[in-house]
């Protein structure tokens, strides 16, 4: 059975297809067998989405995508029909990618590339457009360059004249070339740069800074300034015989703190300016010295000061030329300062070859210009010499005027020779009217009345005090009265008598007035406005003001002026114009005090009387003093004349 062969014939017939299909044919009205049976068997069927390029649908799609194929299709037609089948197969392959353009592109490379057919499922186009700024139209018209007209006439003579002028100008400029060019430069500099030659910005402001400084000071011390001008102690009305000193400004300078005020001097021209000399009275402690110029307008800092190597014991300001200050030093030399000079040194200074004193110079005083119009001043010192210093052609020349000798006491020299000793002068004062007459006070307590005419011979000598005379001062009005103060605690007022009997004069003279002030009196000063008022300062820091017209025995004012205890007051000076006094102490500070009305009583004028002139005033003052003196003067046992 295994060997039986069966024959199978494979045909293209569909085994499942029916072999006879009968259909009703309406034409023949009977069932007829269909001759051929369809043998097609469909295994798989899927609807494709390919469109023929030239079909209506495809064309519509193309139109949608915006591809114009008309021109290209026309050209491609002949070649296309042959390739159609291939293309169709390729299209089926590449359907997913949508690369139709590419296939076409490969056949025609020269052509412009067609737009891609995009994947309709998964393609998103990205495009970005930057912001284009909007355009604007702008127009402008520029100003034409400025124009000006010019007119002239050209003639031969004009040309000639112009050349002549120029020629002359050139000649002139050649002459003055150097100076004028410098001037021009200077002017130009001044125009554009307002600086002084060679100085920096700060010094330009000097003047304005000074004014501002004074303003600030005035503001700070405004109440004091007001007091200075206007304040009057009303309580003085109730106190007949008393007055007060109102402290106004205090002038202290850092560098002067260790020094004592040795002299005060008001400037005769500028009544707010005063000079202070600082040194030391202590023999053991000698250091440097200072001359300070203060102004009432600026109590915080001196206007000007000079430092010296030796203590300054005295100074004086020239009357006519207030910038000249003469000063005497502890080392015995005298010096001349000029405030106008910007330097710190004295203009002149005496040297040992030049007549320097060998002991401290206690007082200097300017004199009137001598016959040759040379300035000159006197100095007195402990070495017993009174010297006259003259400034001759920028040199300081000295001349011994008087030697103070003590005729009574002689010392034993080395060989037993009697050597006349010299007295030590401490102070002097010149008479205001009689130029040649002056008083000298000494350390021995004597007061000599001298004349410039006699070099060794005194007109008179008075045993004024038991200790050194610190100040001797003529009365500003009365020609014969003078006052002395001394370390022996007293202040005495004397009268100078004309006809002297030398015998009597020596030891029997008595003062007209004598005041005991309980402590060493440093200084005494007459008031410039009254012949009977004077002030004194003592070593216990008190200031005394007396008015002989009111009270002959007691001070009108006894006031503690110094701030700290143990401060000695060393000097006092009245201000020539305003009712104030300055008081210096041994700590280098100066206080300005205002006198209360009681202290400055002047003779009241009768109402309706014509204004009093200087001479009459002086006369009245003198009369006032005379009246007082009348009461005090001793009955004439000595020869005295009024």
């Amino acid at each position, binding site marked *: 059975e295994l060997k039986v062969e069966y024959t199978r014939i494979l045909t293209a017939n569909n085994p499942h297809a029916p072999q006879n299909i009968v259909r009703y044919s309406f034409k023949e009205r009977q069932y007829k067998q269909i001759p051929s049976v369809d043998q097609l068997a469909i295994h798989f069927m899927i609807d494709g989405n390919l469109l023929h390029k030239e079909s209506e649908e495809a064309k519509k799609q193309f139109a949608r995508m915006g591809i114009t194929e008309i021109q290209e299709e026309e050209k491609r037609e002949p070649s296309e029909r042959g390739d159609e089948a291939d293309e169709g197969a390729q299209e089926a392959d590449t359907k997913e990618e949508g690369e139709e353009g590419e296939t076409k592109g490969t056949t025609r490379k020269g052509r412009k590339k067609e737009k891609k057919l995009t994947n309709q499922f998964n393609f998103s186009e990205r495009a970005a457009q930057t912001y284009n700024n909007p355009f604007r139209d702008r127009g402008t018209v520029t100003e034409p*360059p400025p124009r000006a*007209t*010019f*007119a*002239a006439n*050209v003639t031969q003579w004009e*040309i000639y004249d112009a050349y002549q002028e120029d020629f002359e100008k050139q000649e002139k400029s050649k002459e003055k070339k150097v100076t004028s060019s410098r001037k021009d430069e200077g002017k130009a500099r001044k125009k554009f740069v307002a600086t002084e030659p060679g100085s920096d910005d700060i010094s330009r402001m000097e003047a304005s800074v000074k004014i501002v400084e004074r303003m600030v000071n005035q503001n700070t011390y405004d109440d004091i300034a007001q007091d200075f001008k206007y304040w009057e102690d009303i309580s003085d009305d109730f106190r007949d015989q008393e007055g007060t000193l109102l402290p106004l400004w205090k002038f202290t300078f850092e560098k002067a703190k260790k020094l004592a005020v040795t002299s005060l001097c008001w400037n005769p021209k500028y009544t707010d300016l005063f000079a202070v000399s600082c040194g030391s009275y202590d023999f053991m402690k000698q250091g440097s010295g200072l001359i300070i110029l203060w102004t009432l307008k600026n109590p915080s800092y001196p206007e000007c000061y000079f430092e010296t190597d030796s203590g300054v014991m005295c100074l004086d300001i020239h009357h006519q030329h207030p910038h000249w200050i003469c000063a005497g030093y502890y080392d015995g030399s005298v010096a001349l300062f000029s405030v106008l000079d910007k330097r710190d040194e004295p203009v002149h200074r005496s040297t040992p070859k030049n007549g320097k004193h060998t002991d401290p110079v206690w007082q200097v005083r300017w004199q009137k210009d001598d016959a040759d119009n040379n300035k000159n001043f006197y100095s007195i010192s402990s070495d017993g010499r009174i010297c006259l210093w003259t400034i001759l052609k920028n040199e300081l020349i000295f001349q011994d005027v008087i030697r103070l000798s003590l005729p009574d006491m002689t010392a034993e020299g080395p060989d037993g020779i009697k050597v006349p000793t010299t007295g030590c002068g401490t102070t002097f004062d010149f008479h205001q009217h009689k130029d040649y007459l002056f008083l000298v006070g000494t350390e021995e307590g004597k007061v000599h009345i001298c004349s410039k005419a006699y070099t060794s011979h005194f007109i008179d000598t008075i045993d004024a005090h038991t200790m050194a005379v610190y100040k001797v001062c003529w009365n500003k009005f009365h020609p014969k009265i003078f006052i002395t103060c001394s370390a022996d605690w007293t202040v005495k007022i004397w009268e100078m008598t004309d006809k002297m009997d030398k015998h009597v004069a020596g030891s029997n003279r008595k003062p007209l007035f004598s005041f005991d002030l309980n402590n060493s009196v440093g200084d005494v000063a007459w008031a410039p406005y009254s012949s009977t008022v004077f002030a004194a300062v003592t070593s216990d820091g008190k200031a005394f003001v007396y008015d002989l017209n009111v009270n002959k025995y007691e001070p009108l004012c006894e006031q503690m002026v110094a701030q700290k205890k143990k401060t000695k007051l060393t000097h006092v000076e009245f201000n020539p114009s305003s009712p104030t006094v300055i008081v210096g102490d041994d700590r280098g500070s100066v206080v300005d005090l205002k006198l209360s009305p009681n202290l400055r009583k002047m003779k009241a004028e009768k109402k309706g009387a014509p204004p009093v002139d200087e001479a009459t005033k002086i006369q009245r003052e003198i009369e006032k003093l005379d009246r007082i003196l009348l009461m005090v003067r001793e009955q004439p046992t000595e020869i005295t004349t009024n």
Partner: protein
Amino acid sequence: MAEVAEEKKADADSKRVHTYPLIRHSDMIDEMKNEAMELCVTACEKFAANNESAAKMIKETMDKKFGASWHAVIGEGYGFEITHEVKNLLYMFFGGNMAIILWKCS
């Protein structure tokens, strides 16, 4: 007579001396002024006989250097009234008897 002769000689001398260029009026900035002055001197010396050529040279050079329209007049006797652009005027004498006016006005 001798004195008069001397004077005349002095005058002639001085006239001869004053041949340097003298600026009578100028509105220009210094740099421009100096350049223009030198140019005028050069032109006048070159074309001493012919004012027109000298003026032509000046005008053309100025046009090239400083732009637009320049005008130059050279002569010995004339009057003028002109409008010029500000800072562009030069009026000078040269050679003792020659006057040159140079201005810009477009």
